[in-house]
C-alpha cells in the first residue's frame, strides 16, 4: 500500500515534469492542419515538415553551431578558471578564503537583469557585440561562481594527504595540481562542465541583448524570433525547441551518474 503510494507520487512527479516536453514533441510532429485543434490529442499522421521547415526556411544549423561553440567555450573557460580557483581555495588555504567563498555565493545571487545594461555597454565598448567571444566572456563571468563553488567542494573531498604527498614527492604546487589533483577531480570536472554547458546552452536574455544577427545568435533567441508579424508558427517553434532540448537531455542522461556524484561530492566528508 505504502509502496503503491510512493510509486503513484513518483509517477505524478514524472508526468508533471515530462508533460510539457511531451507536448512539444507531439506538436512538432503534428500536421499543420491539426495544430490548433484539440481533440484529437494524438495526431492522425506524423510529419517531419516542421523540422524540414526550420532547417530550410531559417539558418537553424548556424544557430545550433553558434550555441555549441558558445556553450562549449564557456564550459572550457569556466572549468579552467574554476578548477584553478577551487584547488587554491580548497588546498592552498590562502588568507581570506572564507570571504572569497562568501563573495562567490553572493555573486551567484545577483539577478542577471541587473547587469544587462552595463554589460551591453561594456561588451559594446570592447567591440564584442554580436560576437561569439562576447557571449562566451559574459557567460563565463556568470557561470564562474557555480564552477568555483562546485570545484572547491570537489577538491575539498580529495584528502589533504594526497596533496602533501605530491609536494613531498617533488612536485611544485602547480605540479601537484596537474599530476595528482586534476586527474582525481575528473568526475567533478565532468559534472561542473556539464552544468555550465547547460547553463550557457539555455541562456536567453544576454543572448537576446548582445546579438543582432545570425553571426552570433543562439538557438533560444532564434526560436523566439520565429513568430512573424501575422502568424505564430507553433509547429516550427516546437520543432526548434525539441532540437534545442535534445542534446541537453542526452548529455544529462549520459552523464547522470557523474553529475549526481559531482553534486554530492564533499557532502559526506567535510
Amino acid at each position, binding site marked *: 500500500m505504502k509502496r503503491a503510494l510512493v510509486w503513484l507520487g513518483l509517477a505524478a512527479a514524472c508526468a508533471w515534469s515530462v508533460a510539457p516536453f511531451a507536448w512539444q514533441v507531439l506538436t512538432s510532429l503534428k500536421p499543420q492542419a491539426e495544430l490548433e485543434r484539440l481533440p484529437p490529442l494524438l495526431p492522425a499522421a506524423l510529419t517531419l515538415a516542421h523540422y524540414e521547415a526550420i532547417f530550410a526556411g531559417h539558418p537553424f544549423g548556424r544557430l545550433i553551431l553558434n550555441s555549441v561553440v558558445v556553450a562549449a567555450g564557456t564550459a572550457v573557460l569556466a572549468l579552467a578558471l574554476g578548477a584553478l580557483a577551487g584547488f587554491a581555495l580548497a588546498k592552498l588555504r590562502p588568507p581570506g578564503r572564507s570571504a572569497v567563498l562568501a563573495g562567490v555565493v553572493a555573486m551567484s545571487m545577483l539577478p542577471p537583469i541587473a547587469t544587462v545594461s552595463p554589460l551591453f555597454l561594456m561588451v559594446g565598448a570592447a567591440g564584442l557585440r554580436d560576437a561569439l567571444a562576447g557571449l562566451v566572456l559574459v557567460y563565463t563571468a556568470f557561470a564562474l561562481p557555480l564552477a568555483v563553488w562546485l570545484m572547491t567542494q570537489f577538491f575539498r573531498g580529495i584528502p589533504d*594527504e*594526497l596533496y602533501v*604527498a605530491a609536494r*613531498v614527492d*617533488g*612536485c611544485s604546487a602547480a605540479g601537484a595540481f596537474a599530476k595528482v589533483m586534476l586527474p582525481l577531480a575528473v568526475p567533478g570536472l565532468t559534472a561542473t562542465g556539464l552544468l555550465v554547458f547547460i547553463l550557457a546552452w539555455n541562456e536567453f536574455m544576454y543572448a537576446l541583448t548582445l546579438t543582432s544577427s545570425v553571426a552570433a545568435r543562439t538557438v533560444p533567441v532564434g526560436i523566439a524570433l520565429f513568430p512573424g508579424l501575422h502568424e505564430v508558427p507553433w509547429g516550427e517553434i516546437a520543432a526548434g525547441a525539441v532540437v534545442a532540448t535534445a542534446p541537453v537531455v542526452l548529455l544529462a542522461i549520459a552523464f547522470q551518474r557523474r553529475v549526481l556524484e559531482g553534486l554530492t561530492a564533499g557532502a559526506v566528508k567535510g
Partner: protein
Amino acid sequence: MAEVRLERLSKRFGALAVAEELSLAIADGELFTFLGPSGCGKSTLLHIVAGVEPPSSGRVWIGGRDVTDAPPQRRDVAMVFQSYALYPHLDVAGNLAFPLRNRGVTGGELRAEVERVAATLGLGPLLGKRPRELSGGQRQRVALGRALIRRPAAFLMDEPLSNLDAALRLEIREEIKRVHQAHAITTLYVTHDQEEALALSDRVAVLKDGRIQQCDPPGELYARPADTFVARFVGSPPMNLVPATALAGHAALAARLAGRDPDAVTVGLRPQQVEVHATARPGAQPLEVALVEPAGADTWIIGGLRGNRLQGKLAPGERLAPGARGGFTFAADAVHLFDAASGRRLD
C-alpha cells in the same frame, strides 16, 4: 641521509600550541619518535619539517642546510601517512615511480629502481594493481616503498600503523624497523602509541601542550620517567600514582622517602612490580580487590587503597575474587618519587 635540527620552533593555531620553542637535534640515521596524545599536533610538526606548513617562528635545518623557507620539493624528505595517501589514479608501479619521475629519472633506470624497491618489500606481483585493489598492509608497504625509492635525506612517518589491524601492525612495524636498519635513513616518527614508540625508536620525545616533557632512549623513558605525565603515558598498563601518605608505614617506601614530607610526594609504582597476594605476608599492606583481569601470562588485580586505585600482578598460583581482601608488596627500587604539586621526578 642527514641530521635534522629544530631550532626554537614554535607553532600555534589560535589557542592550541603545537610547539613552544622546541629545540631538538636528531642525529643522522637516528629513528626519533614524537610521542603524544591524539590531537596534540604531532602531525603538524612533521608538516613543518616537510615544508607544507610554515612555523610561527624558529628554524628547521636538514643536513646542515637551513630549509625553513625552502618549498617541500627542495627539502629531500619523504613522508608516510596514516591514510597511506597513495595516488588512486596510478597503479603500484606508478606510485613507486612518482617521486623519481619528478626528479627526471626515466626509462630503464626508472624501471630498475621500481623493481628493486618492489623486490625488497615483496611488492613484485602487485606492480600492475591500483591502490583500491590492495589490502591495508599492502598499501602501507607501497607507501613505504614510495618513500624509500629515492633514498631521501629523512623519512617522516605520520602514525603509519594506526589504520592497520593488530596483526598487520606488528608486521609493518617489523618492516619499518628492518628498512631503517638496512638503510639507516634519519626517521622522524609520530605516534600516540607508546608501545610502538618503545619498540621502534632510538630516542623518544614525549610531547604535551607543545613542549617536550622528556626526550630519552626508550629504556630510560620507561625506567626514569621525568614526570607523572610521562609516567602514566609510557608503559602498559599505566603506572600507579598514589599519594605517599596512602602507603605510609611501608618499609620499602620509608627507605626511599629518606625524610621527605609524605604530604608533598606522589609515589609511582609500575603494576608489573606490585605483587598482590591472597594470603598474609610479612610487610604486606591490605588491598580491597575490585576487579580481576586475566591477561594470559599474568592476572591483573585492580584494587582500592584508602580511596586510591592501585593495580598489581597476582602472585603466581594464587587466587583472588572481587570483594576479597588481599595484600600487596613492592621492592624499594620499584618506587618512583614525584613532587605532588609539580609532578616532576624527585630523585
